[in-house]
């Protein structure tokens, strides 16, 4: 069964087996506003936990997306090139950014579960 964890940078990672799918949260897309460009990492790139590896641009500004865990990118969401608005419409569905083959699943322990993340967002006011 898939398990979703959350980072303090408002990324989510949904883990099935040793593959994690990464995107940004509903809160993050609301804060960004209309997304007009997304740059996702290419398959084969190795990323470290906390490394900036994707970019999301709203009308106003560019923001980095950080890898919530270490691993090798196995797929970037090519669909976002033509439909960046998917990040706003379905941040946890069609608007996913990339998939990672996790190198150390123990890292996930440092991320929040859904309840903890909801509390974290509430604490931001």
């Amino acid at each position, binding site marked *: 069964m898939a398990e979703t964890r959350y980072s303090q940078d408002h990324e989510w990672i949904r883990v099935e087996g040793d593959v994690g799918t990464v995107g940004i949260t509903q809160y993050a897309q609301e804060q960004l*506003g*209309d997304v*007009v*460009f997304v*740059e996702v990492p290419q398959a084969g790139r190795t990323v470290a936990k906390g490394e900036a590896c994707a*970019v999301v*641009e*709203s*009308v*106003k*500004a*560019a923001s980095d997306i950080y890898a919530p865990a270490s691993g090798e990118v196995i797929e970037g969401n090519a669909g976002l*090139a033509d439909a960046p608005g998917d990040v706003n419409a379905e941040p946890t569905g069609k608007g996913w950014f990339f998939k990672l083959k996790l190198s150390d699943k123990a890292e996930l322990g440092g991320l929040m579960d859904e309840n903890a993340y909801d509390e974290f967002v509430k604490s931001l006011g």
Partner: protein
Amino acid sequence: MSEPTAGPLKRTPLYDLHRELGARIVPFAGYEMPVQYPTGILVEHAQTRNSCGLFDVSHMGQVRLTSKAGHNAAKALETIVPGDIVGLQPGQQRYTQFTNEEGGILDDLMVTSTGDHLNLVVNAACKDADLAHIQANLSSSCEIEPMFSRGLLALQGPQAVTVLSRFAPQVATMAFMTGAFVMIEGARCYVTRSGYTGCDGFEISTPADATDPIARKLLSHPEVKPIGLGARDSLRLEAGLCLYGHDIDTTTTPVEAVLLWSIGKDRRAGGARAGGYPGAAAVQKHAADGAPRKRVGLLPEGKAIAREGAEIAIGGKIVGKVTSGGFGPTLGRAVAMGYVEKAHSANGTKVDLVVRGKPVPAEIVPMPFVKHTYYRG
């Protein structure tokens, strides 16, 4: 859109209305301002281009100059701006700049002659410094009245004239860059046919306490939606209009900024009232010999967005810098403007914009990116 500020943030007369409308409020130029409403910047941008948008620009500074006995306010103002102010007929509006001794731009502003007065509209972030500058230079010749508590509403877009005509039919025949006193909802307002979007539209200077009722009344018309600072920025960028502090500042002359058109021929070398403003020699030298660099439009290939600060390169050599860049919703693609060395400034020149360390191919193109639709009568 937010900028660092000192001291408590100020509010415009429309603060409560912005809150009611669900605006996201950000600090901007010392004010709590709406950056967007719930529909978002893309919808607001299209609303303005296709129908009509209402912007709160009450944070901008309005200053009224009146000639003291035996003096001429227009002549006096020409000692600190390069624009032709003496030649301004009653009811005419003009764009000009305050310059420094090097010919750099301290601020850009609109000047309208009402016949009895000159009305100035300056940028919010500069207004206190501008007022001090005006007082330091014009106190002996002009009564100087800051009207910082007045409201300023911008009603912009192709339907703006239809809507405002319902309140005041005489605005329909006003031409671009003219102004008139108009009664709106019982309040004496000063309306100019101008704006910062490239669209037809009006700016309405309102008594402070009439600002909120007039804004609500305008919003009750089905063509009108509230628009925040986010779309204001994307609209002006598509229109190729300069944002002070970004595309123009104390280090850019009006010639480098390609604003020489705003210096009337009477104020240019050989004109009847040539020079006479701070930095005139430097500006005239740029006008005569060509400035070493020039503000240009930049159209990136593909979808990557080059923002302010991105370097402009040709064959790996840096030839300039982006000063404004973003997504142009009307075009559905990225657009930018910036300064490049004169030798590389011709339209059609292929350049690279360095975005996150990677070159993004782009071409130097004429501006505006979206055609102006001003009403010229």
